[in-house]
């Protein structure tokens, strides 16, 4: 277990290096010169050359790359090309924090709704409420988020006039209602059905029947035998569902004018602001790698049958 975690952790920098090389190569050799984009209509070749020299963009690839990576490791993410003189770190960290809050709250809502509901409807298999709840969740989940956000916004802000129409005021502000509904309540279908299937699977196992047969009450069996085992496959998926929220949060951020990282990254891509793209890519890759690692470890802690130390289970 421990060995496995160490190996995975060592693999993470390799992953990040390759990912960063990919983005850096696109930044250096890809189309769209950032200097030309920066200068816009005031472009003239001499100034452009001087700017390139100032920014260090005229040096060979490997020098630029190794310098960037060395600075990155020390926590200096470089300077934004679009907002001259501003360190990338100061720009992106606050925005990332906003997006992270949004994603965490939405995930929390999904978990709080989907797990109990899924557990409940698994017990109601074959009655009316099982298919009804699944159908409602699936139907809501298929609505594109570009439709739900404006619609909810219209309802809450123009129709019942409960909340302000745009902006961001932290997670205890009323304005979080629309993102939470569109990214949380509407997206429970996946986890709900996974929880349902997993619970049904466990309920059909022999040890559950044995537990009932030896006279344990339904609640004891449910709590100790069924729930714990049903949660095992669900835990791994949760790490990935967090990553899946990013796309949705980007759309929500854009429509509602929330100062998150999503909109900013896309603008940076359009403006060829490669220091920002690099930093976000690397931090995102690290976060993603760590969260999947955590999920795997959590998986092994809940289910003692799972061992990672044999080669065959590496993937």
């Amino acid at each position, binding site marked *: 277990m421990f060995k496995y975690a160490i190996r995975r952790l060592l693999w993470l920098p390799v*992953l*990040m290096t*390759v*990912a960063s090389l*990919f*983005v850096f190569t*696109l930044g250096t050799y*890809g*189309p*769209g010169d950032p200097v030309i984009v920066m200068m816009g209509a005031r472009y003239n070749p001499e100034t452009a050359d001087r700017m390139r020299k100032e920014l260090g963009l005229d040096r060979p690839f490997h020098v630029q790359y190794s310098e960037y990576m060395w600075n990155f490791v020390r926590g200096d993410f470089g300077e934004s090309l679009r907002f001259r003189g501003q360190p990338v770190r100061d720009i992106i960290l606050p925005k990332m924090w906003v997006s992270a809050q949004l994603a965490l709250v939405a995930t929390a809502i999904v978990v709080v709704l989907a797990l109990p509901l899924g557990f409940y409807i698994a017990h109601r298999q074959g009655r009316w409420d099982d298919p009804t709840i699944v159908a409602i969740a*699936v*139907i809501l989940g*298929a*609505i*594109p988020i*570009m*439709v739900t*956000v*404006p*619609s909810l*916004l*219209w309802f809450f*802000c*123009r129709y019942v006039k409960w909340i302000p*129409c745009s902006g961001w005021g932290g997670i205890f502000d009323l304005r979080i209602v629309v993102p939470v509904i569109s990214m949380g309540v509407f997206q429970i279908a996946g986890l709900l059905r996974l929880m349902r*299937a997993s619970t*049904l*699977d466990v309920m059909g196992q022999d040890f559950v029947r044995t537990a009932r047969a030896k006279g344990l009450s339904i609640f004891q069996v449910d709590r100790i035998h069924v729930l714990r085992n049903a949660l095992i496959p669900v835990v791994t998926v949760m790490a990935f569902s967090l*990553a*899946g929220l*990013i*796309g949705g949060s*980007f*759309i929500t951020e*854009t*429509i509602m004018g929330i100062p998150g990282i999503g909109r900013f*990254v*896309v603008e940076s*891509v*359009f403006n060829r602001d490669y220091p920002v*793209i690099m930093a*976000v*890519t690397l931090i*995102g*890759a690290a976060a*993603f*790698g760590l969260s999947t690692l955590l999920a795997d470890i959590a998986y092994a802690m809940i289910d003692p049958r799972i061992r990672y130390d044999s080669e065959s289970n590496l*993937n």
Partner: protein
Amino acid sequence: MAVRELASVAEKRQRSRGHFARAWSRLLRKKLAVVCMVTLVVVYLAGIFAAWISPYGYQEQDYSHIRESPSVDISGGVGNFWNNSHIAGTDRAGRDIFTRILWGIQNTVLLTVVAMLTGALPIGLTLGLLAGYFGGKIDSLIMRTGEIAAVFPEFFMVIIIASTLGPRIREWVIWLEDNTFFDGLITSGFVDYIVISLALVSFGWIGLARLLRGQILYLRESQHIEAARAIGASTKRIMFLHLLPNAMSPILVSVTMGMGVFIGTEIFLSWIGLGIQPPRPSLGRMLLEAGNIGTLRNEPWMLFAPGFVAWILLLSWNLLGDALNDVFNPRTR
């Protein structure tokens, strides 16, 4: 017990028809799956034949009918109502929204089908097969590549590819138009198609390759493969005759689900302005233009008409995928 035995006898009798024929007939017994399939066929045909069905041109502006709500106009006789009415309303330039939706469906449908059938599916299957069958270095090379590609969140990868490769491909195509007899490629939206397909394929193959690899790893140890190898079947024969067909059911489910994801991604790309470029209509673009409170208050059909179509497409593919999953794994219900 007796019922189950009877069922298994019936199952045995059916066996001569083959795995997929049986799965098909089981699928046809599911009402919801049939409804989904019919819906998809109708929507896809509507998109493909947009040029014949649509009552107007997608760029045709009619300033006497600006921001008109959905209506059926039979003043010109019942026979002419199709060409006189705006059944999904008009937008601010007086363009018929129903027409634009049809053309938007055409873009979405062609793109996703082409990207799946010519890109993600063959690449994913080939790499998964190679990784699973040969193992060792080939396996780690392919799987590590997939892992690195999967490090980028899907939407981020798609944006990077669409925004960096897009202009370069556009340059090539312009050169092609200038120097060869090809003409009208830019105006036909050809470039957008290539860029979006590349973006979709960039992440689409990973899941399929991983899935097939797992299947192959499992099947490789089974006895019928051992038997095939024992009687001297070639590697090619084992791969394409024994392994691939046996691993096909989960692949089919995954492709069906993947179509929904592709459609969602295409709409997303067009929404942020990296997909189909105006004036060619696309569902994502229409959702973007109508996705604000002001429009929603005065012209809600502008958002809900394309939104409804996108919803139907996503829902049908997802439900069809579920039904297929049930058909292939009847135990996990």
